[in-house]
């Protein structure tokens, strides 16, 4: 699996703090190293040792060591510290995992017919959820306008998905048809958010603990997203673009 455009964005943003010059060829070489490491993280293999099937591949610690060696070998010591490497690898891995689920559940018209919509909701806990910042003595201080419902509203308004906005207003749930451009707008940071990853699928932003659940068609009808008997439309999933090689995406 090649590195995707979304992963490239994630990596580039991780590299953004670096003050030195990184040539395109060195960057691409670095990205290819990331690609290989990410593949091993996403798709661990198995091999037979003495008649026993065992898992093989990199774990986050050995992956970090490989990237650190790669950075040193390219004469870029100081480009990324261990924390930044971890962050870049984690983000790129999560995006690739999200892309896999997206293709399965959005590109398949029969799945979309049974589950026409997604609901955005918290699945993974975070010490400091979006919409808050850490205050003194571990308190959480609200940051109005940064939370997911506000972002969802901004994305829905940007693409004119009034039905999704009506569902949010009536139920507090962030549900939209899979075919809605709202999802891409959410990933693009509609409303002026700069921490997003450019995906029409979760994770939509760095370090996000939100993910997507399928919503069945009967529920979509109840919520007013579909009319009875209406055929839901599958989103335009550009699988080739989603998994475009880094040379094309760069």
């Amino acid at each position: 699996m090649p590195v995707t455009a979304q992963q490239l964005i994630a990596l580039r943003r991780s590299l953004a703090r670096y003050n030195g010059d990184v040539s395109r060829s060195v960057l691409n070489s670095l990205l290819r190293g990331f690609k290989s490491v990410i593949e091993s993280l996403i798709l661990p293999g198995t091999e037979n040792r003495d008649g026993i099937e065992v898992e093989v591949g990199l774990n986050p610690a050995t992956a970090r060591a490989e990237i650190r060696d790669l950075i040193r070998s390219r004469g870029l010591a100081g480009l990324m510290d261990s924390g930044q490497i971890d962050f870049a690898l984690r983000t790129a891995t999560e995006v690739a995992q999200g892309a896999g689920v997206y293709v399965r559940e959005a590109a398949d018209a029969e799945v979309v017919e049974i589950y026409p919509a997604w609901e955005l909701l918290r699945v993974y806990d975070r010490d400091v959820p979006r919409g808050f910042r850490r205050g003194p003595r571990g308190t959480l201080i609200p940051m109005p306008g940064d939370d997911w419902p506000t972002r969802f509203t901004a994305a829905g308004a940007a693409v004119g998905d009034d039905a999704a906005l009506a569902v949010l207003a009536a139920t507090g749930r962030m549900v939209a048809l899979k075919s809605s451009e709202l999802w891409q707008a959410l990933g693009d940071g509609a409303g002026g958010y700069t921490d997003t990853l450019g995906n029409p699928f979760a994770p939509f932003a760095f370090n996000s603990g939100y993910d997507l659940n399928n919503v069945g068609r009967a529920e979509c009808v109840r919520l007013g997203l579909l009319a009875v008997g209406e055929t839901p439309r599958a989103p335009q999933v550009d699988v080739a673009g989603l998994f475009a090689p880094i040379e094309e995406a760069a």
Partner: protein
Amino acid sequence: MIIRADITFEDNASPALARQAAALQPRLVARAIGGPLRETVRNHLARRPSNKRGWPSTRFWESAARGTTWEPTEEGVLIHIKKLGFRQRYFGGVIRAVTKRFLTIPISPLAYGKTVADFPGSFLMVTKKGAYIVRYGGAMGARGRMRRHNATLQFLFKLQASVNQVGDKDILPTRAALMSVARQALHEYFTDIHGGGAT
């Protein structure tokens, strides 16, 4: 008097039955249960406690949850959990050092989720209790300030040729829980088809 009664048979059953029969195709049944099963496994993994010792999380379970996918098969649905170490945790068994002479077992929160390469200047120390990777650390003064660097030794990893991990079947939802989710998904799917919602 003749009463004439015209009887017209309207076959409403056949189209409905045809819809039901079409909906029973394994391909569609798999698509009806695949997503909900994936979400159930994902949520189960996401709720796992981070680690027994309360050390900083490496997000192992979140990564396993995000690596959960599904695919339709001829028999039903296959749920994949693509995460190195998951299988080992489920089945358990002996882990042996293969590429190196010893496994490095973290014995400090500082070392958890790290390798020896993350600690430049660390070195091997052999004691009666075993071999360790250690480094010099600081000593705290009475007011909690770092007073002297290199005043103490921090034990980071213990070296072992192998460890025997006990398997844990609870890291996956029970078969009964998965069957319940599949049944519920199928119930909603067929209710929808029967209600004429399907196209």
